[in-house]
């Protein structure tokens, strides 16, 4: 088999999953925010929240559609490009992937139609219920996908037969994989950060351009409160918990993340630097002394294993990529907490809406959580290399044996073309929806009259 095929297959999957996940990360977080708005509207009978949420639902719909049409390929790509992986581990991961389709996917699709077109046909409670079901559906979906990934990171509840085929031995054990706990919290909380940054950004844009101010204030206020809580929780305990389990179970990934080449005591935390794979040292390091040892082991001079304690064929094949991805995520994550705590403070002092500089920051930071999330996932997935199933099956063993690299490149180029087109389409449509904006008071009266 030709060597380039593994790289092409990996690029193929990485490209598809990164593009796909641009959409669900907003969908999942936004579903939560929509439920919050609908609940407040239902509870306080304040129509302003209903008007404001109508726009969020529109935004949600476009995003959801792009998520669905790019998500359908994901289920097929396991089989098309990673057939040997599917053949051997299907007895385990087939369970969770099938569950996602059966339990989550249908739930989301069925209730999305009602959420989008049902406001006039349904009573407020049923419409609120549709929003809730869409939220549950998207978060369940996330759960089953992460359960699949968690098994690849930290295999549990499996047996291997003589032919190398994996079978699940306990479904409950697989679904309560200890790895999944922190991963789920960390990832789902990240979707809240993405969505609240996007909603805050749109609100800030309207306030700065002095349009739709009634809805805009609700967006900024609600989003800043959610984001302030989420960004803090993301660092502690969620991010901390996730990092601890990596140090405990995946020491090579952890060492690559932190750029630790040699096992040592009193390890500093690296803020900046470039891993040099020739000298096995960090170039130009800026560090906080002892911080890493303190965080990981609880003592200043605690020992942390470096890459040199492991055979080189077990190192991630791109240590610098893992290092940079991890650092982009950590630095952005800290920045998010700083921005949102400042915004929350201003909100509390009733100075947020007049502070144009803060609104500018909120408006411009919307793309950053996407970058942080992608970086986080690159850390997880590139850091898991050279393993496809950690410690059990190597990535080079997983590709489809009869699919040639020419065919893989052909479909990769095809996907690239289509997704470029779709990316442009998406941006155009979102800009249009934002330009039109949420309904004004007068429009909503007409809509209420139309309802029963």
């Amino acid at each position: 088999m030709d060597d380039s095929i593994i790289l092409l297959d990996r690029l193929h999957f990485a490209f598809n999953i990164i593009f796909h996940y641009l959409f669900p990360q907003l969908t999942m977080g936004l579903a939560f925010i929509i439920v919050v708005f609908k609940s407040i509207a239902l509870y306080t009978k304040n129509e302003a929240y209903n008007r404001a949420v109508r726009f969020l639902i529109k935004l949600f719909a476009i995003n959801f559609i792009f998520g669905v049409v790019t998500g359908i390929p994901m289920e097929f790509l396991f089989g098309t490009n990673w057939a040997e992986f599917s053949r051997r581990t299907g007895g385990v991961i087939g369970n969770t992937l099938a569950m996602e389709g059966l339990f989550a996917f249908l739930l989301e699709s069925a209730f999305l139609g009602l959420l989008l077109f049902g406001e006039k046909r349904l009573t407020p409670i049923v419409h609120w219920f549709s929003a809730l079901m869409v939220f549950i559906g998207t978060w369940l979906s996330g759960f089953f996908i992460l359960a699949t990934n968690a098994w690849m990171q930290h295999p549990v509840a499996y047996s291997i037969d003589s032919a190398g085929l994996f079978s699940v031995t306990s479904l409950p054990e697989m679904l309560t994989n200890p790895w999944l706990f922190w991963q789920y919290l960390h990832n789902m909380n990240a979707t809240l950060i993405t969505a609240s940054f996007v909603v805050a950004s749109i609100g800030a844009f309207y306030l700065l351009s002095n349009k739709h101010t009634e809805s805009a204030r609700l967006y900024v206020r609600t989003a800043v409160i959610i984001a302030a809580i989420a960004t803090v929780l993301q660092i502690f305990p969620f991010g901390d918990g996730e990092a601890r389990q990596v140090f405990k179970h995946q020491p090579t990934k952890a060492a690559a993340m932190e750029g630790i080449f040699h096992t040592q005591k009193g390890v500093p935390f690296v803020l900046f630097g470039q891993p040099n794979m020739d000298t096995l040292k960090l170039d130009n390091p800026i560090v906080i002394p002892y911080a890493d040892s303190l965080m990981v082991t609880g003592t200043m001079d605690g020992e942390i294993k470096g890459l040199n304690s492991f055979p080189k064929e077990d190192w991630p094949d791109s240590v610098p990529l893992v290092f940079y991805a991890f650092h982009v995520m950590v630095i952005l994550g800290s920045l998010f907490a700083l921005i949102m705590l400042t915004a929350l403070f201003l909100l509390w002092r009733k100075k947020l809406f007049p502070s144009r500089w803060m609104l500018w920051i909120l408006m411009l930071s919307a793309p950053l959580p996407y970058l942080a999330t992608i970086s986080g996932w690159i850390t997880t997935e590139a850091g898991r290399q050279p393993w496809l199933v950690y410690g059990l099956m190597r990535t080079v063993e997983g590709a489809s044996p009869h699919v040639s690299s020419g065919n893989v490149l052909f479909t990769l180029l095809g996907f690239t073309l289509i997704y470029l087109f779709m990316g442009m389409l998406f941006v155009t449509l979102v800009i249009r929806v934002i330009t039109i904006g949420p309904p004004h008071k007068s429009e909503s009266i007409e809509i209420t009259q139309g309802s029963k």
Partner: protein
Amino acid sequence: MEAFWFIVLGVLLTLFIVLDGFDFGTGIIYHFIAKTNDERRAVLNAIGPIWDGNEVWLIIAGGALFFAFPIAYASIFSGYYLALIFLLWLLIFRGLSMELRSQISNPLWHTFWDAMLTIGSVSIALLLGVALGNVLRGAPLDADGFFFLPLWTDFRTGVYPGILDWFTVLIGVFSVVLLAVHGANFIALKTVGVIQDRARKIARKGTLIVILFALFLPVASYVAQPMLLENYKLYWIGILLPILSFFTLLGLFITRRKDNDLYAFLSSAFLIVLLMLSVAFSVFPNMIIATTNPSYSLTIYNTATSEYALRTGLIWYSVGAFLALCYTLFMYRSFKGKVSLPKEGEGY
């Protein structure tokens, strides 16, 4: 237990073809039944709110295949690599065409997505038929349980055919016609006036072509893969399937003549169910028939997942299927009746 999951898989695939089938059918006849923007929007509002829910059955069927028969899943998906990727691309455009058309109110924008809808629907219907043809004909499996098929070779069946050959293309064309009739029946049921008249006319003509196909498809299948007759020799009860299909086809013809839209739609739906049943009955217990060496064939027994997974799957699948049924019914109830045209900017 394996046989049970084979049935589940068959039911899911059939649900997908019956439900999403009328969406594809509607897309195929779209340009013939709807000429003005208002007419097109009326047609799109008939399938718009439900296509996504219908397509979910494909995902669920894919998931069930991966779960219950992972070895077959890996072999089929990598073997029909190109056809599957094309199917994915077409599904992307078909889905976008319905959802994005209403986003911008510009005639050129509408024309573009209208074209995408029809091109997508015709090609998907063709590909689904081709896929079914491939299931019937078999594939050149290697000893390692894998294969790779080019899109075409010499268009002949045999040991090393392409994904497209005379037989699979024939089934593909049949599938386009059948789904067009099915879609026309659905639109006749959901609309009134001029669109309904056009849909009825198309369904009537299409039914005649379906009957024409029905006369020689069984013979063609036998020529392409003689093994398909084995099960009929073994279990005489199978002879009921062609007989029932014949009567359903007759029913479709009569109800269409009388313009009884509900029964016509049910007839085309039931016809699809029977055809899928015949396919399943003919190939059982094979998942893929090997054209190379019969002993390489992938069957439900040598591709199934562990006994434990199949047994626990029984529990959670029942729960999931029940829930799925509940919200599918809830969804159809909420959008039941004839479509009414919402004002511009709302709906599709």
